[in-house]
């Protein structure tokens, strides 16, 4: 019987450790995306070649360095962003993986657009660092810009015949070509409603491309939020009444006037309320409340409708997504409303989130900071749909 000596055992274990390390290194090198990992002090402990290449750095420039000093988050124009809004900070605030698209500053001063996924690293239930994967999406952005331009041109081209349909249908309805019987009026009503829906869809598509390409104007002017919510409820109430839904409003004390974009705030609230009404059965209830908190103003839209299933929740703000329990009940829908709301809220420097239970209803929250929304230059203002 052969017994390994202590030295042989140590040598064997050392060889196995080196092999394991080599395999881990091979694994990291083979990943097609950039990888950066940190310890619990925020210092970078691992980086792969793809990450180094994307950032234009050498390994010695990055290992042991503080993450925010190396992975420099900037806006598209190269200006630095608030630390608390960084995806990695949000990952630790939420304890969950954060997916985002950002721009990083390269070593040569240029800016690279990236799509990233960052997660806390957990050991025995405690956070011990972070791991981030990211990839260069320059080509995708070019493709998106081309797509956005196409949608914009196509939408404008569609407006012309739609305008003719609306104008002449209204003229027929008003009797310009002679008196109409009841049935004819009904038919024209259907035409006008369909044209209205098409117009709304074109507006939504245009608004989305404008937000996605950063060409949407965000004003920052004094807005009396208490008056704004009253106006929105008055606007939406007819559609609630039509469905026998009770729409109520509660305005808290000391709701301030803040500098923001009135049109965009109206659009967010109108969209949330319309959704609540749409996805609540007849005779249900929808409420809008607004309160002021220490650092923000919180709007709450609550309904007792169909709710959102658990498996749909992570996707609810994604483009074109509609929950299964909704598509069967309400086949007309584009899945763009919440996506647009999310993007508008981000451009207002606010936040939107929700909770929901199937068959019990949903509550959507929308907050705006007291300090207001930053003005953003752009080419186009939001087009609000006809309601």
């Amino acid at each position: 019987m052969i017994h390994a000596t202590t030295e042989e055992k140590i040598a064997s274990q050392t060889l196995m450790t080196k092999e394991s390390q080599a395999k881990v290194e091979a694994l990291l090198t083979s990943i097609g995306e950039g990888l950066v990992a940190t310890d619990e002090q925020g210092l970078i402990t691992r980086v792969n070649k793809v990450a180094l290449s994307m950032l234009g750095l050498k390994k010695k420039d990055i290992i042991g360095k503080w993450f925010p000093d190396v992975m420099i988050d900037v806006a598209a124009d190269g200006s630095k962003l608030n630390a608390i809004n960084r995806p990695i900070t949000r990952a630790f605030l939420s304890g969950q993986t954060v997916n985002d698209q950002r721009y990083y500053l390269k070593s040569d001063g240029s800016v690279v657009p990236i799509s990233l996924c960052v997660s806390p690293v957990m050991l025995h239930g405690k956070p011990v660092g972070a791991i981030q994967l990211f990839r260069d999406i320059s080509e995708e952005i070019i493709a998106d810009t081309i797509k956005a331009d196409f949608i914009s041109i196509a939408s404008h081209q569609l407006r012309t015949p739609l305008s003719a349909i609306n104008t002449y249908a209204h003229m027929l309805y008003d009797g310009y070509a002679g008196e109409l019987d009841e049935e004819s009026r009904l038919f024209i009503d259907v035409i006008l409603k369909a044209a209205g829906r098409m117009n709304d869809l074109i507006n939504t598509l245009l608004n989305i491309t404008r937000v996605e390409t950063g060409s949407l104007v965000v004003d920052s002017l004094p807005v009396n939020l208490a008056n704004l919510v009253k106006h929105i409820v008055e606007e939406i109430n007819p559609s609630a009444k039509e469905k026998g839904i009770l729409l109520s409003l509660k305005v808290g004390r000391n709701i301030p006037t803040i500098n923001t974009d009135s049109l965009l705030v109206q659009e967010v609230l109108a969209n949330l309320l319309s959704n609540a009404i749409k996805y609540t059965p007849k005779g249900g209830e929808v409420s809008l409340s607004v309160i002021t908190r220490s650092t923000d103003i919180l709007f709450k839209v609550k309904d007792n409708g169909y709710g959102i299933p658990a498996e749909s929740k992570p996707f609810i703000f994604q483009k074109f997504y509609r929950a299964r329990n909704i598509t069967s009940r309400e086949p007309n829908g584009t899945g763009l409303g919440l996506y647009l709301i999310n993007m508008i809220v981000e451009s207002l420097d606010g936040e939107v989130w929700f909770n929901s239970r199937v068959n019990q209803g949903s509550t959507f929250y929308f907050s705006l900071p007291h300090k207001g929304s930053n003005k953003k230059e752009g080419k186009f203002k939001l087009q609000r749909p006809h309601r």
Partner: protein
Amino acid sequence: MMNAGDLYTQMVEITSRYLGPSADRFINRQVRNHIGKEPEDLVGEDLLRLIDWIRISMVFLTDDDEIIREYLNRLQDLATEFKAT
């Protein structure tokens, strides 16, 4: 007698010395996401559990170890004070 709402308020007050107006949002998120409670239901033991998350969030906001240590010590003292009552 100290009530739970006081703990949250004091946490935000301490945090605001380091994070300014972002303090409320910072602590609010930590409490909701890591403890799963409303801020007014927070107790001393919860804060002790939160400190690891607060620490690691702070290390990505500043590389000033002294500031982080000072801040966390203040929170630790606060947790002890509320645990004892």
